[in-house]
């Protein structure tokens, strides 16, 4: 039996589905465990430093796996030809070896309650929304309903940093790192501050927007597709999913990847690799989609009986990625241990500008310094949408 130690599919229902519907087909048997990231990391690190352990396969987001990359075995001998190369490259974690194998991917979308459509500003197209229109929309709704109906996942577990890194800033500056303190960035934060006026103040407690959508606290929001799925699955007819808005520099969007690695201490290396192989099978990938709402990393034919959430998000993602102004953004690369602190820069900027109400310019200056220090320390070259750099990615 292989112990699959994963940060993914943590909600109990998803965990259960992973066990019953996804890994159940693996012959040797799988113990799928989805602890919180704290215990996940602690155990992984402990096993690596003890030099022995029980974990066969480590599952996690790109950032999770980065934290333990030193102890991951080389998986180059696994056949990953079905996985798009740029995706597979992420799994090298800036080394020569294949440290992890991409497992599944996802992105972020906008969701609206159908009742919210009544407030959609005139002339606005759901599939080609701009940030200005989004602000007007949220404003109209707040005024019409007597209270803000826009929600944003700014809670402790909310994925707010991804929004700034991959959506807001690129849309205005065309960059994640380089233009961090540019005038465009200043404008972006100004817009967000405007939008925030019409955001439900409880947003700082929102982690998974599906809860607020389902209980009608929020009518319009942005979140990770796995975190809005429940809204579609419980009330399939009440919500619409659509692409994220665009800014002057395009429609920035980020794709996130989860991967599987094998710790060097795995009790049975061969079986662990066999499990990864199994996980990459199209059927398994489909089953994973049903269980977690993460999309396959290999190409599969979508059957008709997919869950409502997939039905709703699939077309929206397609529209978004195919949009003329599409501006794909990659996950941070080469940050290593500093991944978390890199994210924290964006979160801190948000908290200071939006929540603490500090002035935008000085805050950006100050955070830019912090960001630069991190980039210098990591010596990470730029990644999309920033232009490739020699050495550390510069903060202009």
């Amino acid at each position, binding site marked *: 039996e292989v*112990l699959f130690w994963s940060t993914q599919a*943590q*909600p*109990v*229902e998803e*965990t*259960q589905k992973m*066990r019953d519907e996804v890994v159940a087909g693996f012959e040797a048997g799988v*113990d799928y*465990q*989805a*602890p*919180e990231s*704290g*215990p996940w990391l*602690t*155990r992984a*690190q*402990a*096993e690596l*430093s*003890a*030099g*022995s*352990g*029980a974990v066969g396969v480590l599952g996690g987001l790109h950032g999770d796996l980065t934290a333990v990359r030193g102890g991951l075995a080389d998986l180059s001998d696994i056949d990953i030809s079905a996985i798009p190369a740029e995706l597979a490259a992420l799994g090298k974690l800036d080394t020569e070896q294949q440290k992890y194998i991409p497992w599944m991917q996802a992105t972020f979308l906008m969701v609206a309650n159908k009742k919210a459509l009544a407030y959609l500003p005139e002339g606005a197209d759901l599939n080609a929304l701009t940030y200005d229109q989004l602000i007007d929309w949220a404003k109209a709704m707040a005024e019409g309903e007597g209270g803000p109906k826009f929600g944003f996942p700014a809670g402790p*577990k909310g994925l707010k940093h991804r929004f700034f890194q991959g959506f807001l800033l690129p849309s205005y500056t065309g960059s994640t790192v380089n233009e961090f303190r540019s005038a465009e960035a200043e404008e972006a934060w100004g817009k967000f501050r405007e939008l925030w006026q019409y955001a439900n103040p409880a947003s700082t407690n929102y*982690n*998974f927007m*599906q*809860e607020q959508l*389902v*209980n*009608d606290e929020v009518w319009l929001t942005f979140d990770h597709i796995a975190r809005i799925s*429940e809204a579609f699955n*419980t009330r399939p007819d009440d919500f619409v999913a659509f692409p994220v808005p665009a800014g002057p520099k395009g429609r920035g969007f980020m794709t996130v990847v989860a991967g599987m690695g094998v710790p060097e201490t795995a009790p049975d290396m061969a079986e662990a690799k066999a499990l990864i192989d199994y996980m990459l099978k199209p059927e398994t990938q489909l089953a994973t989609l049903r269980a977690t709402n993460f999309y396959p990393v290999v190409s599969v034919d979508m059957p008709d009986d997919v869950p409502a959430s997939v039905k709703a998000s699939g077309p929206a993602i397609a529209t978004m990625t195919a949009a003329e102004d599409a501006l794909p953004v990659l996950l941070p690369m080469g940050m290593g241990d500093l991944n978390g602190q890199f994210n924290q820069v964006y979160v801190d900027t948000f908290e200071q500008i939006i929540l603490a109400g500090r002035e935008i310019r000085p805050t950006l200056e100050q955070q830019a310094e912090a960001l630069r220090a991190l980039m210098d320390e990591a010596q990470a070259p730029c990644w999309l949408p920033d232009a490739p750099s020699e050495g550390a990615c510069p903060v202009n």
Partner: protein
Amino acid sequence: MSDTVTAPPSVRKAGRWVFISGVVLLCVWTLLPIYLLMVNALSTPEEVNGFPKSFIPSFDLTSLRFFLEFEGVLNALWNSIRVAVVTMILSIGLGAPAGYALSRFDFPGKEVFRFLVVMTRAFPLPLLALPLAVMFLRVGLDDSILGLALVHTTLALPFAVLITFSLFSGIPFELEEAAFTLGCTRIQAFRKVVLPLAAPGIAASAVFAFVISWNEVFAAAVLTIKNRTLTAFLMQSLDWSPLHLKFAGAAALVLPALIFIFAVRKYLFAMWGIANR
């Protein structure tokens, strides 16, 4: 002679009513949140997410059943109980002698010991979990009931020492002396005299040790894989689960703990009215 009665019965009655309503108020204060938890746990997912909420549950068992039908729930429950009981025994077994020594003897280093013991509890466990896990993995205590109980004992022991110390201090040494002259060794005197008199205190620290162990998630999540405790089993993923399941999970966790407290409550009062005069 005058018949003036300064505090007529009506005043005393009024005082009585104030007292009773105070008690009722305190009961409501402690029970209401529990009740609301149960309401949520026994409602349908729609009700849990709806507004305004009903204060009477619809007794829908879907959410609870989800957990009860979870594979291995019973096993996890059993593990939790075992870990908590071992923790209880260890922390009382190790803590009570120390508490006794602190309350009965004067010796150099006494205050320092007491202080240091307390301080062990002032350090966040999640940071200790990594070195502990490494240690356990090396010696083979990983993923065992005993291993987890040892960690939980680290958490509960300082309190056991402290609580038993303060309560042993309240028992007249003279009673023990009497026992000595009646042929008791120190240990016998402790068992026959101090222990029964300190039953409420021992029960208090036992309850506390049990509850600490029962509710501890972090170490449980790190140190157990096959032998998950109920808390690690349910709680670690509650944060990520839909509301109705959160509540059902919380309720499923709270219930056994309440039953345990109910079972030992009489010891909290063991010697009442006898020791008291």
